[in-house]
């Protein structure tokens, strides 16, 4: 297993390098100049050229890229052009906020999705099956910016139960977690349901029942473990996606997370911050996929990585 993990990490290095090249190239090709954006309405051509020269933005692209990679190999992601802050500090400051939001959203997504999927599979075609599938479908169908504002309006303003925006305590996480979690619950619920339905009809489950095992043991121990294989893949990808930052949720609820940092970096053509964010996100996705694969091997002993 150790060798497998090591191999996966090695493969991820050229992936990250490739992505940095693409990001660097794209940011240089699309219109937009970070210093022009910093000056906006107060643009002055002399100041612009002087500052760009000082920031080495007029150097050839490949020189700037190699300098960036050189710094990266020394563990230095550089300084944000617009914010004049260390990129690593910005990402490390924002990431815990996204982690908290993601964990809360995952608790809701999986807390709703998995039980809903299980119950729907056990009681297929019943009212409760239709209710759960409809409820989760509603969650994924509502655009997040809309559901976020509705939640703020009802629970924040009208009922005055929860804060509307900000991130100054546990109560601030509830509404955004519900919005994000409800949206993510649908895929988990549906996949759990369909996967469990498939497994429940297999011969070995019939055997388990024939042996006289309790239904709870049949479903939760024997069937669920096998049904969770495809669900685990989706869960790992969901975690990676959430940890990369839920921009709209963060913007509407004023959560200072990774998503907003990334989007601001794109809008400001802030190359160091954007590269840092991209590497960070790619790293998370790679780790997420690796965790999913490892979890697979625990769930299914037939899967071995040598």
């Amino acid at each position, binding site marked *: 297993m150790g060798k497998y993990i090591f191999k996966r990490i090695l493969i991820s290095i050229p992936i990250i390098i490739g992505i940095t090249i693409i990001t660097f190239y794209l940011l240089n090709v*699309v*219109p*937009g*100049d970070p210093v*022009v*954006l*910093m*000056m*906006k*309405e*107060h*643009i*002055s*051509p*002399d*100041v*612009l050229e*002087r*500052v760009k020269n*000082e*920031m080495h933005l007029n150097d050839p692209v490949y020189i700037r890229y190699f300098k960036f990679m050189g710094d990266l190999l020394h563990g230095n992601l550089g*300084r944000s052009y*617009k*914010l*004049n*802050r260390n990129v690593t500090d*910005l990402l490390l*400051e*924002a990431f*815990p*906020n996204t*982690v*908290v939001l993601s*964990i*809360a959203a995952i*608790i809701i997504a999986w807390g709703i999705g998995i039980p809903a999927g299980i119950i729907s599979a056990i009681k297929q075609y019943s009212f409760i099956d239709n209710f759960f599938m409809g409820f989760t479908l509603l969650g994924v169908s509502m655009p997040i910016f809309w559901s976020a*504002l509705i939640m*703020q*309006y009802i629970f*924040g*303003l009208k009922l005055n139960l929860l*804060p*509307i*925006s*900000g*991130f*100054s*305590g*546990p109560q601030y*996480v509830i509404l955004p977690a519900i919005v994000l979690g409800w949206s993510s619950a649908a895929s988990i619920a549906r996949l759990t349901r369909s996967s469990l339905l498939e497994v429940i009809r297999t011969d070995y489950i019939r055997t388990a029942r024939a042996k006289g095992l309790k239904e709870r043991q049949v479903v939760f121990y024997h069937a669920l473990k096998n049904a969770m294989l495809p669900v685990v893949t989706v869960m790992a990808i969901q975690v990676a996606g959430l940890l990369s930052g839920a921009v709209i949720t963060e913007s*509407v*609820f*004023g959560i*200072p*997370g990774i998503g*907003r*940092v990334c989007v*601001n970096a794109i*809008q400001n*053509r802030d190359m160091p911050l954007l590269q840092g964010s991209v590497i960070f996100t790619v790293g998370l996705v790679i780790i997420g996929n690796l965790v999913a694969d490892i979890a697979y091997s625990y769930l299914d002993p037939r899967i071995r990585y040598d």
Partner: protein
Amino acid sequence: MPVRKKWLISFVILLLILSQLTGCSSSSAPPAQQKEKVITIAKTSDPGTADVQLTTEEYFIPLNIYDRLVEAVTIEPGKSELQPGLAEKWDVSEDGLVYTFHLRKGVKFHNGEELKADDVLYTFDRMLDPKTKALNTDFLNMIDGAQERMDGTADSTRGLKVIDDYTIQITLAQPFAPFIACLSTPAGSIYNRKATEAAGQDFGVKAEATVGTGPFVLSSWSYNDQIVLAANPNYFKGKADLDKIIAKIVPDAETQRMMFEKGEIDVFDCDNARSQIPYFKNSEKWKNQIVSGPRVGIYYYNINQAIEPFDDVKVRKAMQRAINKQLLLDTLYNGTGTVAKGILPPGLIGYNPNLPGIPYDIEAAKSLLTEAGYPNGFQMQISQTVDSPNTLKLNEAVQAMLNDISVKAEIVQMDEAAWFGTRREGKLPMYTSDWSADFNDPDNFMYTFFSKQNSKVRSFNYNNEYVQEGLEKARAITDQNERIALYNELEKIIVYDDAAWIPLFHLDHLFVVQPRVKNFKVSWNGWSDMPYYEVKVEE
């Protein structure tokens, strides 16, 4: 794994999550003491830096934690007066070149250091030092030796001289009438040499490293979350009535409005949600809580003379006459303002109330187009940034008006970076924007848009040698009446003879404040960022 062990592990994980959730409380939770006077405002985006030399528009923090040699004080809505700030008096030589500032004694920075002339020298030299990568050098580049300093050929600024601990002399390369006004802008904020040098790259970023003399101290800054300013008990004019200002970063305008209605924020800037103005004006709860002030600024449409057929002055004049500005003002902006007739707004030195105005005249517009060779109109583009609903409404209304003279305008939306980048190249199609005064002088408007170099980077591509030489000349004239007369002449040529832009209106700036907020005034220039020294809260 035994079931009990599974439960134990799950319980531990839950505890860790809960501890992280409680740990995410920022250092500025709602005040525990009832007596603490706190005002909470909202900003749509994080300012990024409190180093005023590195930003051209984020002035909320600088206006409250720093002071300037001279201050532009709002004496009534839309009117300002230059008053002594850190300098208690100043002299100007006869030739308008040498300014001698006599500093107040005993003014302390937030780190306890006393303000000395060397701090002023350090601050201005730092702005001009190329290593600073300052964006606001235009406010100081008229100082003698500034050019060499900025080019890196000198390691100090020749025109900055410390006479003694409390006297600094600034010599200009040539007379520049608005120099004192320039020093009153946020870009003229004074830093402490010792603290700023020690802070290095943390200056303007970390609260503990950012030091000024102002009525408030930067207490904490959680990026993209909130900024807290605490009252400076040793402020030289006396401690502010407020104990704290909390600025929450709330990107969504609708969220801001809900927070305001709930009382989570104390000031709502109606620029963020213009469509809500009728609601507030008609609401029994809020109509008496609206604070309004004129903006010493102007909304306008640019015309890019590098794009055909706008190189023809008759076409440009036709465009000026095809837009019904009063109708736009009444329907889209609730009539909160006045139609603009030139460039300089009311409240600005040099404002000319006697300009005739450009009439809304469809027939005249059609006739001008026919004379120019476009009897059936033409196709054109209006550009704007995405996610700007207010701008889109205005552009759509103007698109409909232009249709009346057979001009088919396509609205092109692009992301902000592309928009500013294209404008800088001089290639941006017609757009609408606005400008509010940085300082009270016609140069801040006329030179900004119509000087040779600025006209290109703002995509006007306006070329009139007489006007552009006049704009350079006006900067150096010391006789104020002569200056104003020249600016008034140039304004008429630019707007009426050359039709270089389409003036729209001068809009008022509306805020709604909670009943507990007292003495809230709109700044003389109508900016959203303002000093809070005189604002009070009463429970």
